[in-house]
């Protein structure tokens, strides 16, 4: 019995060891970056570079702890007490939720350049090698025999961008005739073969399981798919798409509590330096600085026309959400029979 107790004690202590070990080696300064899923590789690299720079400038060691997950779930963890110094999320509304909880001061979106979005992305088409179905623009999606893969806008944030980009195209094409725009969207969704619940699921369905002819995807995700399966896919950038601005913000309540405001600000500002911008570009996010974006002109189709969510057509996220995606909204009307 004693032996058992002893070994149990040892077991419990050994479980704590790595943690206490960490304490001994802890950096002088530590900040927490709560981010969303596809930015993992970007911040892996960026944090290393910034930590080195911080050490060179101040002589102090810095550790940036990063965490990734679904954007709104991540926002919820911050609201519920995950003490993030900075948040770098997919959608402004997720940060607005944190603001509503009183942790971030209003006006955060003006705190950093370009609407506090150091990098942007857009929706593109991923097609199979050689583009056998000859898909170049949104109206090619509704051609006979074309199978489309997109996640469900009801359950996936990314899918809402797909939908809105198609809407922007149709609005232009049919000259604001909403009945025709709806009909166009309806036809697109009639061509959808599999409606996964999340963006990664759709990528998997298209890439690994070989379903469909075209995947509507984030530009950065599409490039990742290209890297993973070289020579099997191509990216098609439609002439018109939507501009996504994943914003960053300082979580005022937590930096003030921890005394990390200065380093957190410096961290986010560094995203806007040429070096930070290039790291974003390297990980397939479009740098917000036009000069640096130009350096990536072979990688990104910079001549695309990109509609923003704040365009009068949508009137911001909250309006778009209410009109299109809430129950009984336009998306539901499309899917009735």
């Amino acid at each position, binding site marked *: 019995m004693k032996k058992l107790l002893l070994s149990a004690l040892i077991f419990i202590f050994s479980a704590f060891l790595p943690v206490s070990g960490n304490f001994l080696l802890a950096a002088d300064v530590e900040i927490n970056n709560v981010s969303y899923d596809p930015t993992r590789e970007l911040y892996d690299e960026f944090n290393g570079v910034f930590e080195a720079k911080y050490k060179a400038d101040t002589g102090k060691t810095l550790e940036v702890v990063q965490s990734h997950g679904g954007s709104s779930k991540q926002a919820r963890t911050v609201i519920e007490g995950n003490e993030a110094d900075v948040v770098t999320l997919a959608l402004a509304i997720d940060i607005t939720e944190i603001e509503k909880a009183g942790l971030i001061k209003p006006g955060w979106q003006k705190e950093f350049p370009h609407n506090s979005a150091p990098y942007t992305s857009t929706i593109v088409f991923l097609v199979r090698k050689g583009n056998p179905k000859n898909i170049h623009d949104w109206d090619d999606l509704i051609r006979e025999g074309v199978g489309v893969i997109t996640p*469900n806008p009801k*359950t996936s944030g990314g899918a809402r961008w797909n939908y809105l980009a198609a809407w922007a195209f149709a609005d232009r094409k049919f000259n604001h005739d909403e009945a025709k725009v709806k009909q166009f969207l309806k036809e697109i969704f009639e061509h959808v073969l*599999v*409606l996964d619940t999340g963006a990664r699921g759709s990528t998997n369905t298209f890439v690994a399981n070989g379903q469909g002819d075209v995947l509507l995807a984030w530009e950065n995700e599409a490039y990742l798919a290209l890297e993973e399966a070289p020579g099997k896919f191509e990216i098609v950038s439609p002439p018109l798409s939507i501009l996504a601005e994943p914003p960053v913000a300082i979580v005022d309540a937590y930096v003030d509590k921890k005394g990390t405001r200065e380093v957190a600000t410096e961290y986010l500002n560094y995203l806007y330096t040429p070096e930070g911008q290039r790291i974003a570009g390297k990980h397939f996010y479009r740098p917000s600085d036009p000069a640096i974006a130009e350096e990536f002109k072979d990688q990104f189709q910079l001549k695309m026309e990109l509609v923003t969510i704040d365009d009068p057509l949508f009137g911001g996220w909250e309006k778009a959400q209410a009109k299109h995606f809430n129950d009984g909204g336009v998306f539901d009307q499309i899917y009735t029979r």
Partner: protein
Amino acid sequence: MSYLSIIVLIPMISLAVESSGLGVRGFWDTVTDTRTLIACRVSFLCSLAGALVNAVFGLILAWVITRYRFPLRRLIDGLIELPFALPTAVAGISLTVLTTDNGWLGKPVFDLFGIRIAYTQLGIILAITFITIPFVVRSIQPVLEQLSRDYEDAGLLLGAGRTRVFFQIVLPEIKPALLTGFSLAFARGLGEYGSVIFIAGNIPFQTEIAPLVIMSKLEQFNYDQATAVAVLMLFFSFTIMFFVNRLQAKISRFTGEH
């Protein structure tokens, strides 16, 4: 009894309370929505099919494991629990990869018969069958193990054929257990979300399951409507379970045991 009421009744009451926020009218509109009803039908038919398949093949599996001695029997016996141990998402993804029209299993089936498995209702049935196999096997197994072979031998000696022995001696003995396994599998299949969404295709009116309707309402913080759909599902399940139980009670009385 009080344990049962705490574990089962309280969540049910909270469901009812939560959905009552809609009012009678809103509740009725939600549960009579065509898309919701069709999703419920898909869920019921697919889990019914899955449970039926399991009732037959689970019985055979349990029979083989208890009655025959063969190499690796222990291992196979252990494998039965695998669907429980595996995270459902893993099960869903691997079944999908296996059965798409270019997967190991899916390609030959598609080439030979032109039948798609993944992203159709067949895929949903497959996932549910996989997930719920342990219920049937594990319900029947102990009964089969305890069933004395003397009865069967007596039957055979008295001149009954093997088929007759099975249907008139063995089956009545294991019927209650089989029914239990069947209804457990059926109920679990109804609620199964994790594995099914990967293989289902999730197209409204075709391969959208009721739990997905609930989930997408939850994603939009639409708790009232989500619980309304849940109440609807609960009502159907409860009715079915009630009749299965009645049936089971009848059979038990008939065989005079259990």
